[in-house]
């Protein structure tokens, strides 16, 4: 190392490692053969490698479900939390450690059933994190119960006669929340787009909500066959402010729409179509403020300061001995 050549801030770059895909591989996945989660995992690992995210600066937080096993399979920090509670845990992490890249992996049951309240408020907070809902339309881990996104009439362990309620559409709901700042949809069977869309989500400052339609061959076999087999039934959303399909992919998937992610009304219309299935960035708004700011306007809340403040506050309630000085 030559002493006079490098300004110290170059040092950060000088020693940067070159991460490979293997650096992001954690435990051996235990998903069923054919499960769409594997495609999403591989795409996310490729993204981490492409963005060269330091594994120790990256954290994957999940709830409970097949999909929520995701953090185990990443060689980064991870938190496999409580059912439905991935988002509040992630918020806590982001508040305390704004320097970390926070990813949240949740399922349709985890997010849209037991975790709905957290979902709505997480969108409102708009903290800087990337949220992937792996939506297979079923409770997979607990072996085949209907979820809020199950198709109408689906027979499952909890609905032997078939479901009687219309499913909810997670992207439509999210778009309905005032503070939503990034909403996108991907499908596990076009992994290149999973990569590109999650990348756009990752680049976005604020909470990016990505619903990934995911095949569960175990309990909902063939659910998306029609779309998997016929590329013409997919609608790719392209825009310079969203994602742009590669020429190779565009030659297979020929059905495109130029959609400006700033157009929220059009985004709502697109969100409500299920055939063709829209894929891409539906909505993006960089101007919505993020909630996380670990300190007050001028105040530096180091642990010492916090301790001082707490002690002062507690002192106010300390009972003074009678006659022990004072007025």
């Amino acid at each position, binding site marked *: *190392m030559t*002493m*006079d050549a*490098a*300004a*110290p*801030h170059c*040092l*950060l770059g000088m*020693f*940067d490692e070159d991460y*490979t*895909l293997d650096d992001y591989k954690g435990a051996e996945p235990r998903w069923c*053969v*054919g*499960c*769409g989660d*594997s*495609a999403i*995992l*591989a795409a996310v*690992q*490729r993204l981490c490698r492409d963005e060269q995210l*330091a594994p*120790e*600066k990256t954290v994957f937080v999940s709830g409970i479900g097949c999909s929520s096993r995701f953090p185990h399979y990443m060689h980064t920090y991870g938190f496999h939390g409580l059912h439905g509670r991935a988002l509040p845990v992630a918020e806590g992490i982001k508040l*305390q450690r*704004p*320097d970390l890249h926070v990813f949240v992996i949740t399922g349709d049951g985890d997010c849209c059933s037991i975790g709905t309240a957290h979902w709505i408020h997480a969108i409102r907070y708009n903290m800087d994190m990337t949220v992937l809902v792996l939506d297979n339309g079923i409770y997979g881990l607990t072996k085949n119960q209907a979820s809020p996104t199950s198709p109408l009439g689906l027979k499952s362990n909890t609905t032997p006669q078939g479901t009687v309620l219309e499913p909810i559409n997670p992207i439509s709901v999210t778009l309905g929340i005032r503070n939503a700042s990034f909403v996108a949809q991907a499908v*596990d*069977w*076009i*992994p*290149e787009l999973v990569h590109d869309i999650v990348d756009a989500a990752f680049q976005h400052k604020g909470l990016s909500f990505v619903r990934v339609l995911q*095949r569960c*061959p175990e309990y909902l076999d063939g659910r998306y066959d029609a779309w*998997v*087999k016929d590329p013409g039934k997919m609608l790719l959303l392209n825009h310079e402010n969203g994602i742009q399909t590669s020429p*190779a992919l565009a030659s*297979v998937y020929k059905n495109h729409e130029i959609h400006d992610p700033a157009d929220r009304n059009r985004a709502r219309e697109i969100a409500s179509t299920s055939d063709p299935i829209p894929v891409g960035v539906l909505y993006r708004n960089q101007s919505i403020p993020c909630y996380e700011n*670990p*300190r007050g306007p*001028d*105040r*530096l*809340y*180091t*642990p*010492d300061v916090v301790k001082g403040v707490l002690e002062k506050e507690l002192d106010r309630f300390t009972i003074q001995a009678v006659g022990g000085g004072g007025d």
Partner: protein
Amino acid sequence: MDKSLSALTAFHITGERLAGELDDVGRLDLRPALFGAYRDLSKLRHDFPLVLVNGDAGGGFVRSLSGVVDEILSDIAPHGIAGERLRQHVLKLEQEARSLAAGGEARSLGEIWDDAGRRLTAKTDAAALPQLEESLAQAREGLRFDGETVACDGELPVKFVTHAWTLDKRQRTQRLRDKLDDLTLTLSNILHTDVDNVEEAQGAEKLKRSMGKALEDEFDFDAMSRLLRTAPTGETLPEARRRRLNSVLTVFKSQRFLPPAENSRKRGRRKEPYGFVFDSCEEVLEAIQKRRPEMAKLVKAVAIAELEVANRYDESKHDQFFSHFSHHHLHVEDFALFPPYLVRLHGDSAVAAERTALWQVLSSGLPIKVLVQYDDVLGGDMLGPERLTANIKGPQLAAMALGLGNVFVVQTSSAYLFRLRDSIATGLASDGPALFSLFSGAPPGNAAASNNSPNVAPYLKAAAATESRAFPGYVHDPEAGGDWASRFHLETNSQPDADWPMRDFHYQDAGLQRNATETAFTFIDFVACDRRYANRFARVPQSSWHDGMIPVKEFLDLDAESAASKVPYIWMIDERDALCRAIVEDSLVSAARQCRDMWHSLQELAGINNSHAQALLAGEREIWQKEKEQELEALRGQLEAAAAAPAAPSAAPVAETPGAAAVETPSAAPAEVPDEAVEAGPVEEPYIETPRCTTCNECTELNDRMFAYNDEMQAYILDPDAGSYRQMVEAAEACQVAIIHPGKPRNSTETGLSDLEARAADFN
């Protein structure tokens, strides 16, 4: 030469007034004729007064009163007749405010606005009052910010630039503060990770105490403790790291480049924070020299902290580097971390006194911003007796700074300052040195207005300096690109393509008929505002006007021979606005030529009438013409040949673009059909469309010697012979995205091939 012309010529050449009627224009109090329209500036809607906007109210750091009024009106006054009354009222208020602001005292826009409102209501009669008051109230509501108003006077350049600088400094200071705060927070958190106490906290005793008496018996705290201790606890902070973090925090706390935070405890014990505004280049250089060791300390601390926060501090690599790091290793880029410096110099004498230091500052590459305010462009001795050529001092410094290449330069006069506000801000925000060379137009304090004609307001004088090319405006932004076209801009001047701007000029003749003509505003018109040079002009009474008198602009365009029989004049007006002609001494004409030459070189830098380009263009045009002639010649030959042979095809059209290749005869062979058009035949070799693979494990589970994942975790055929054709076909069927193409069987002895081939057909 006739007699009347010879008297004029004599004055022109020698300055001698032979005829008694050639009056000195100074005594007559004449002004350039184009100033006629601008007697009372308060009636004129122009940029002034300006408002230096407090805080970040949006709309920029400085606004013009008229701009503010326009914006309010467009918000509150409906289009058309409905909004007309409101518009009239508010425009009156603006005029009132403008004359109040010209008073010279520093007052806020809010105060002036209210004052103007009171004056206006006092003047208005009772019947019209309610409507006026309503309008004024509405307008006041629309005024959503405040700030100091500044007129176009001698204080403007300093106030303007200092205000912009303060905002930029505030932003940079905030950036540095945020950075140090973030790092401090993270480092403190690392220091407080309480792994040292984990041992104790996991003990049964401690667990028991934390539970409280009531539930004590319900739990087996020993078991709980044993369970907890199986969890990994992390390592305690090594002593060396703890020391390193603490010393970084100490440097952050003791640095003097930022003022202490508003509510920081322990205020008063700290040393005074550093100042960043100076009135001398020598002082700024000295201050920076003194501060360098401390700067280096902070740069080093920040670098260490960033490495620590990124988890990249490697003692074996970094310790040695940092132990040797001192102010000798500071880089120019390191200065970007710190607030920028501002030096304010006043007048040519200050520049002369500090020449060496100023040059050092400008060539340092450091973010030192230098404001040089000129109140006098010409100087009293521009045509001093010992001089062979004129010496126009004002614009010299900036022109020289352009030569340094990496200095951000803005030159302009006060009149155009507002229009260049964004450039001033960009220059301040840039990471390198900047020079703001500004002409105020105000009377220089020491010379007691001696060089100013009393009727000329600073705004007019400033505008005239730029308009006449005596003090041209330009912006040079070294960071805007690699060539002069992107770095240098001359557009702030009127009619930048011309030598002198041409203006329409209306007047009434003796018969009270309205006349219009065009007249140039030249360097000489600017000199005519300056009393020190009044004796270089002579008014010629109309009775003595002669055909040999021609406008200065035309005179300057003549060659020496044709000029010999002419005398140049400019149009002027007296205090009653009566037009007259003033002829000009030759020494001034030479000065004007020099000014025009300097202007020409600026034009060339800006790509206007570039001499190299013009020479090149002329050459290219000649070549192109020759080529075209040859082509035409060839075509004519072809046509003649065609006429001779009737069956030949007609000639191809002539290419019209310059430089196009000679016309080719179309080839007789039909174009080859591109490969893609041929339908692909059935697949022979098995393959996978790997980029579409969803990593679903179906195929790899089936036979992991046949199918494998590549570096991207997507499947490919590792070895087609590592399994049977049956497996290949089953994999293709199992693949959810149908991207496995089994091809033809490779081993003809395998059983059931015909059935398998039929199944494979769907995937090939």
